[in-house]
């Protein structure tokens, strides 16, 4: 077994523009995903939009510098994640298309294997 991080990327403006009915369908799709994934799901959360992020990095003088905003300042950002445990990539790739973000034009789901530290 191995762990995979599902990183849900998309355009926050497009998510904000969704209607109440669209959100109902969206949430139902996530529920269907969670149902299908079952106990493979180790964790998962929806993230507050990028403008609420705070980034901490080196200022070069030894003192950490705190900046307002996400690490990568782009139109698209991370909107949420799932952490899954699965036997192989195919098992994950079979589940991922259940996520509604796969089907919207502005968003996508990135599957990253998690480093195994023994």
């Amino acid at each position, binding site marked *: 077994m191995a762990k995979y991080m599902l990183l849900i990327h998309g355009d926050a403006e497009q998510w904000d523009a969704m209607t109440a009915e669209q959100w109902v369908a969206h949430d139902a799709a996530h529920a269907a995903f969670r149902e299908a994934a079952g106990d493979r799901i180790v964790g998962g959360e929806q993230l507050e939009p990028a403008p609420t992020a705070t980034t901490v990095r080196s200022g070069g003088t030894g003192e950490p510098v705190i900046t307002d905003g996400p690490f990568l300042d782009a139109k698209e950002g991370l909107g949420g994640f799932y952490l899954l445990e699965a036997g*192989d*990539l*195919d098992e994950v790739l079979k589940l991922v298309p259940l996520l509604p973000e796969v089907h919207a034009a502005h968003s996508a789901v990135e599957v990253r294997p998690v480093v195994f530290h023994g």
Partner: protein
Amino acid sequence: MNDEVVAAVADAHRREWARIVATTVRLTRDFDLAEECAQDAFAQALRVWASSGVPDRPGGWLTEVARNRARDVMRREARFRRALPLLVVDETVPGPEDALAADDRLRLIFTCCHPALDRPTQVALTLRLVSGLSTAEVARAFLVREATMAARITRAKRKIATARIPYRVPSADQLGVRVGAVLQVVHLIFTIGHTAPDGAQLIRRDLCASAVDLARLLRLLMPADTAVGGLLALLLLNEARAASRVGPDGRLRLLADQDRSLWDTALIAEGVALLTDALRRGEPTRYAVEAAIAAVHAEAPRRRGAELGRHRLGRDRRPVRGAAGDVAGLPRRTAQPGRGDRHAGRAAGRAGRAGAAAR
């Protein structure tokens, strides 16, 4: 070392490389080690066969040597920490009742052509691991330096192991899509060979041969798949004209100027038979449509190109070789013989799209 042994080893390399690597990978669960062991087995064959003769079943002999070598190395190196995680290999091997899943070569092909790898990587891995081309040869096909290709292949193997791309024939619900990707890879290999971008040679016969071998292997392993039959037909019908495509001056010969006596009639007959079978069995695939276009060109050995076009396009309204449906007849209308392969290629592309839309 006598020529007979060298020829036998070369022949075995072409026929058996994929099987040897594929079965050894299941044991080693590591592509690099499986490749090394396969290479060792061929090196040993050169020595041993020279003194004791070529065995009755060279493939079996080579596989056994490669697997024994793998066992030795694995025993010796068990205590060292491994650089990469082991490949995901199913513990239970399906029995002969599931013919598809039972062949290791299919596992190897589907793993090399996994959709989580980009297309050039799929092509490179397939040429290296399934066709047995050296990294330098694969690099030449892509017109990149050997070091660049070695890095790309290493990165791909690392991804397969780390992301746990399974060494497995896809399940029935995925098979259609996954076969499609494999066929695109094989077709691309043929196209690279057929229209070689390399200045020194207009046609890379070795790449065309690798593609034909791959298509034959797929046909052997998946005889019921009409897309596979269509692709093999297409490759054979093009390959049949290979000898006439380049003139003595080294320049490309257009179809109208090709010496038709150089065409391989046995390959044409085989291609037409495969095409007929594929069209009879189901909806024409993109490859079958393109193969039908190639068949129109290939089946008229004595007529000049322009005449062929007028006669066939004007008079012959029969669908291709008795196949039903408009799409099967499409090549007759789109093929424009005599304008050279380049033009036929464009027509084929249009017909292919039309064929796909008609599905």
